[in-house]
């Protein structure tokens, strides 16, 4: 899920009352059903046109033209929002119907996709073992030993702070522990610099779940073990303490009351960009350069910096939530799609996309490269805002779930954000919320 288009809503389905097909269409259905179910596409890699469907602006036409000259592959780019794209991927896979040669693979759906077998293993096409060393977030795309997608940008949860507001309050702008971080926020509130210093997106949406995962990491634990068993039921556990910390922040007035309806991405980031909050604990990598330092969208230009995520005794790891690109089984030209993915995720190409070699080669709203070497190159050239901090974070970033996102992740996440939201509104206690989430996890793990 990218920073700009996470699934904060579940779109209500359209209400078309499609007719049961009468005689003619029944015949068509029979004919269609008689078609081959076997996936399979052409192995042609020249003089073909492939469709790439992503929730991203297309690369500059000049870059795509250069790729075409080099390979003989023409790229037809379809830019579609995240929610709609997931619907299309599911519909196409279920109907065993072609819709794109390469498309989005979100980290949270890796387990599902791996089990369903909707995508070709990328290790059949690319040397993913060799890529892994320079691409730390590749681990988030592995399911049952196979790589389902290749991350095309790096996305991980980071803490951002408005250093000007911290300075005004005389608060420590470099807290290394959660205790120091919380003390700093209280100091900002007490000093009246801002009324509500901390951003937590408490709307019942995916962003609330990922916030809790990162907070759990900060408190020194994990959400689920490799078998999917909940690790947060004990009041001493990191997950429990993280949930308590989040709810306490709400009830003690550190978080704006209106955040009960604020989802992550735009809602949360707008508060930060307006200087209405002093810190976002689980923000997105790259937002300082791509959002907070852009005068058209921000009133806090040059005020926001990345903070190494506070932990229990020192900085904690940053959890990955990157977007990847993979090849659906219904692709017409899987080999050509693999060539495109290799090009699209290449380190040199990513440096271009990040705008280092001129705006004419940049990919609009591109976060940051998924290749460590590309990030380091950008940092060395001074082309990445907060590059040194980000490069260090990228090196130590880790998947949200060590065993990969479970196949039942969407249902689990739903339970997480529904119950934490209810706890934030006071409808239930933290203990009850945690118990309900754990029950859901147990049930889902047992059913799978």
């Amino acid at each position, binding site marked *: 899920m990218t920073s*700009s*288009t996470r699934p904060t809503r579940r*779109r209500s*389905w*359209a*209400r*078309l*009352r*499609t*007719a*049961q*097909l*009468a005689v003619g*269409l029944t015949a*068509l*259905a029979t*004919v*269609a*059903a008689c*078609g081959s179910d076997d996936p399979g596409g052409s192995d042609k890699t020249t003089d073909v046109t492939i*469709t790439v*469907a992503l929730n991203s*602006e297309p690369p500059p036409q000049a870059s795509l033209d250069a790729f075409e000259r080099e390979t003989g592959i023409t790229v*037809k780019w*379809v*830019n*579609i*929002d*995240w*929610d*709609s794209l997931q*619907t*299309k991927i599911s*519909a*196409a896979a*279920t*109907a*065993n*119907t*072609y*819709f*794109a040669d390469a498309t989005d693979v979100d980290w949270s759906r890796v387990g599902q996709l791996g089990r369903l077998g909707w995508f070709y293993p990328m290790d059949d096409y690319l040397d993913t073992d060799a890529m892994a060393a320079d691409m730390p977030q590749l681990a988030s795309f592995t399911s049952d030993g196979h790589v389902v997608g290749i991350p095309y940008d790096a996305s991980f949860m980071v803490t951002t702070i408005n250093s000007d507001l911290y300075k005004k309050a005389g608060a420590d702008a470099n807290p290394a522990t959660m205790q120091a971080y919380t003390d700093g926020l209280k100091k900002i509130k007490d000093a009246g610099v801002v009324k509500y210093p901390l951003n937590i997106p408490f709307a019942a949406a995916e962003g609330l779940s990922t916030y809790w995962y990162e907070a759990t990491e900060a408190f020194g634990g994990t959400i689920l073990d490799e078998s999917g068993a909940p690790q947060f039921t004990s009041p001493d556990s990191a997950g429990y303490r993280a949930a308590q910390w989040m709810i306490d922040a709400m009830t003690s007035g550190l978080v704006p009351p209106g955040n009960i309806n604020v989802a992550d*991405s*735009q809602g949360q980031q*707008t508060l930060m960009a*307006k200087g*209405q909050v002093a810190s976002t604990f689980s923000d997105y990598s790259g937002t300082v350069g*791509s*959002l907070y330092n852009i005068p*058209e*969208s921000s009133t806090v230009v040059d005020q926001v910096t990345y903070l190494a995520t506070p932990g229990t005794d020192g900085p904690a790891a940053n959890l990955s939530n990157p977007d990847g690109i993979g090849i659906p089984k219904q692709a017409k030209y899987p080999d050509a799609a693999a060539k495109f993915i290799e090009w699209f995720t290449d380190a040199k190409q990513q440096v271009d996309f990040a705008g280092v070699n001129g705006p004419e080669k940049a990919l*609009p*709203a591109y976060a940051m490269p998924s290749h460590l070497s590309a990030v380091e190159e950008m940092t060395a050239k001074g082309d990445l805002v907060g590059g040194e901090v980000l490069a260090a974070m990228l090196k130590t970033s880790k998947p949200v779930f060590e065993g990969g996102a479970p196949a039942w992740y969407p249902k689990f996440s739903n339970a997480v954000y529904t119950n934490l939201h209810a706890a934030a509104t006071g409808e239930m206690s933290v203990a009850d919320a945690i118990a309900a989430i754990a029950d859901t996890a147990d049930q889902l793990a047992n059913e799978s």
Partner: protein
Amino acid sequence: MKSRRLQAVGVLLILVWSLVPIYWALRTSFQTEADARATPVQYVPHHPTLDNYRALLTGDGEVPGQIRQAALNIVIECSAATVVTVVLATLAAYAFARMSFHGSKILFYSVLATMALPAYATLIPLYRIMSTFGLVNTYSGLVLVYVSGFVPLATWVLHNYFSSLPTSLEEAGLVDGAHRLQVLWHIMLPLARPGIISTAIITFLFAWAQFLFPLVLSSDLSTQPLTVVIASLQGRHVVPTTLLSAAGMLAIAVPAAIALAFSRYIVNGLLAGSVK
């Protein structure tokens, strides 16, 4: 008296619930991006501007171009679906209402029963069929799906309308030697014009509101309607919310104008046959 007050409060609540989001989008569409983000919030635009609408309708950028193409698509798809649906439904409704043939009742109720089927149930098979016959991402594919979806309702509305008309004129026409299609064309259609208009309006409005089917069955801007394109623009930092709000208002404008102008027909059409 008390119940009327309660009724008024209920109506007011529903109105507020329905209209406030639309007002908010309308307000934003008349603001600059800076005003839309201003604190404190401007409930009424301090410096109203038509710039967003101007940009959408005449601008050169990528987003205005997409919106204009999508607007053209939705007009083509909805108009075509409306015409085909009304023609087919008129013929079917007349046959069910006036002609006696073996199995007509079973067939009629079978057609009506399809309205009870959830849309999801047919999405995947339809997608497969469309794909097999190369109809994905074509106007004709979408129109075919809309027609298959709307013909049952249109048939039902028109059946009620035809049934409510007196049979004497029709019988006179038949006695004078006209065949069924002549009777339909020269006698019944003029009488049923209000019902046909209401059916056309209802069909057009339903088609305009579609999202899921065009989302799945159209894959690029060549056929994607406004509803799908606007959704694909939301959430991108690079698209100003003011522009997006203006696009939303344009998408609302056509059905809203039709609903307001022809509300009498819509109500009559849906009530046709309910009072004998």
